[in-house]
């Protein structure tokens, strides 16, 4: 098992070298196969509950997280177990409670801030971008900010333009923060546990559309290190780089493509900052072709960044221009059909791969 030493509240990691988490190599993590089938939302809950049992500095706050058991039932039962002082219902005051939680983190607590949706984080953009990621720097290393901001990101089901944001393209630009975007229940648990223990601010993105996804999640504790991509599927025709929900679109598209004899390799990045560029390079050196699949808008997106890093790091290994497939570059429409077309859905991936592979 991973040893994740408790960081004393009076030792600030920035002051001396912190006792960093010790991670097991990937092949020593508990198996992804098994029959403890639970939902994505339960995996998130388990991660938070396990950490809260071990460390009283950890608490959860957000709208409807307590008495309502979570707008999306992620925190179901947590109020009963941990009580109202640690599972805290907030007013609709994202700026206010995010700012409060940042201060709590500066003094050594470990807040988990739930945004019901990252779409609602814009009213809190100032504290989460100006304070959390910069406190360590501004204070010359005196105060860090060990905090997790988490919530639904990306299109839900027909939630239309103000409620369907992928904020990763915007926020990942900012140094000082880390960003994790799991695509499945197993990773959700392991990444969230790491996030809670990390001494830096972590932006953690979930998807309303995946909360009901089910998979085997080990009951034991495990921590997935940041910055290590997972090969979600091996193949040699082209590398698909993705993260979060669209990884599942890629997997679906891969089936169709396999039937046509096109074997794609799929990398699930798991974290965006840090970004496991080495794994991308390794795969590109094998396939010589790459498509980044990203559910954000294209302009200055994570996809643009990945394409750029590929150019910087393995340009000469490319057979053709590194490509991207994003959400359509329009506000999110309400109508079901339009919303489907808008997303980087499996059909669009299949089309894009076909034209890249056959070019």
């Amino acid at each position: 098992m991973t040893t994740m030493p408790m960081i004393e509240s009076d030792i600030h990691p920035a002051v001396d070298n912190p006792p960093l988490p010790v991670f097991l190599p990937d092949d020593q993590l508990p198996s992804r196969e098994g029959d403890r089938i639970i939902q994505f939302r339960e995996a998130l809950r388990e991660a938070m509950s396990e950490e809260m049992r071990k460390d009283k500095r950890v608490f959860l706050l957000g709208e409807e997280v307590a008495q309502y058991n979570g707008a999306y039932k992620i925190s179901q039962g947590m109020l009963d177990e941990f009580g109202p002082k640690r599972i805290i219902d907030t007013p609709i005051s994202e700026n206010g409670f995010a700012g409060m939680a940042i201060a709590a983190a500066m003094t050594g607590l470990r807040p988990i801030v739930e945004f019901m949706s990252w779409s609602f984080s814009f009213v809190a953009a100032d504290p989460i971008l100006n304070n959390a990621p910069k406190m360590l720097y501004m204070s010359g290393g005196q105060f860090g900010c060990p905090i997790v901001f988490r919530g639904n990101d990306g299109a839900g089901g027909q939630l239309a333009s103000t409620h369907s944001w992928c904020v990763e393209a915007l926020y990942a630009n900012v140094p000082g923060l880390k960003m994790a975007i799991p695509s499945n229940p197993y990773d959700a648990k392991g990444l969230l546990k790491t996030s809670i223990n990390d001494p830096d601010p972590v932006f953690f993105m979930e998807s309303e559309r995946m909360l009901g996804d089910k998979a085997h999640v080990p009951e034991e504790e495990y921590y997935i290190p940041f910055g290590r991509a997972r090969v979600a599927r091996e193949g040699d025709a082209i590398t698909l780089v993705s993260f979060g929900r669209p990884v599942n679109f890629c997997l679906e598209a891969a089936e169709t493509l396999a039937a046509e004899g096109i074997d794609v390799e799929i990398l699930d990045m798991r974290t965006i900052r840090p970004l496991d560029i080495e794994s991308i390079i390794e795969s590109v050196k094998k396939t010589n072709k790459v498509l980044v699949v990203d559910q954000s808008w294209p302009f200055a997106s994570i996809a643009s960044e990945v394409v750029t890093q590929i150019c910087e790091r393995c340009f000469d290994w490319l057979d053709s221009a590194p490509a991207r497939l994003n959400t359509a570059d329009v506000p999110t429409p309400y109508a079901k059909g339009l919303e489907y077309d808008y997303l980087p859905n499996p059909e669009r991936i299949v089309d894009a791969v076909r034209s890249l592979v056959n070019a």
Partner: protein
Amino acid sequence: MPQATAESSEQSTMNTAKADSQQSAVGQAPTAKTASQLPKEVLIKWLYDMQLIREFENRTMQAYQQAKIGGFCHIYTGQEAVAVGTIGCTNADDPVITAYRDHGHALARGMTPEACMAEMFGKTTGCAKGKGGSMHMFDRPNWLFGGHGIVSAQTPMGAGFAFSEKYQLEVIGIGKKKVTLCYMGDGALDQGCFHEAQNLASLWDLPVIYILENNGYSMGTAINRHTANAENLIDRAKGYGIRAAKIDGLDIMNIYNEFKPIVDDCRENSRPAFIDLKTYRYQGHSMSDPQKYRTKEEVDQYKDKDSIAKLCSDLMTMGHIDEAGWKSMRKEIADIVRGSVDHAENAPTPEPGELYTDVYANPEKNLSPTATYSHGTKNPLM
């Protein structure tokens, strides 16, 4: 029970240098009509509109359950007297803006049930051509500026419409004295931008009225758990020198009597106001709410004071309508609403190409690396 039953209403006088100008409004009072003095047609229209909203929402819920409607869908049932009563105090060209629980305001403002229902069905004949959905009812001809999903985002905009009308009158020399109605839920009280909006409205003498549809809950959070000093919200507004009143929102005649003078005064003297209108929603927060945070008894208590039943019985007492009339009105409405569902069912879905329209009013080239934009089809309401 988190919410007081506000039988009585209380009004403040404005706590500012503008107190003088208030006098003139008071001076007008004798000529003002009370609700019971209004023409029969007006009162009957209120009943009609309230029942239209109720019936419309029943059908909305049905359609949602049949998965004809998607996304978040917030039902207005129980609060009908608020939208109909307050809008009933305004002119047809006074700007109105509200949050996502907006079907009632849209219908009260005159949007056709077809346009409203088709929007939720995601059809081209919807008020936003299927691009907006339940939370985004816009109706330009009826001066309805949305339907906004981000809690409280409409409150600075409310001040903005009041500003704009004042600017047009004073700087450009067009238009006339208008009042803007800006609706908000109790949860919206806790957002910072509402504070900014109130300060700006008071500082700049903007004729905007913030109508707090105080249904006692922000999603599952009772008001006293989400906002401080919840019993006495009008004091906050007074802190900004804004006229404020608490009004029972279940009785439309009462709403008219108390709200109309405020509307007239804000229009005349170009000042903001804040109204704490006590109301109640019969349904859950949205279509996916198990409602464990309140008891059936609490809901029933409010249903006993149902605003439609109350108005109907008042109008019967006044002799404006009888059982037969009420029955035929309901039938007429039921037909119209069923018609709107049929219309929505049969209306066309947007062409895939509509994805890329209405993004820019001036869709020049190279605005996007992946998209080519164009003008959209004409909005059906225009």
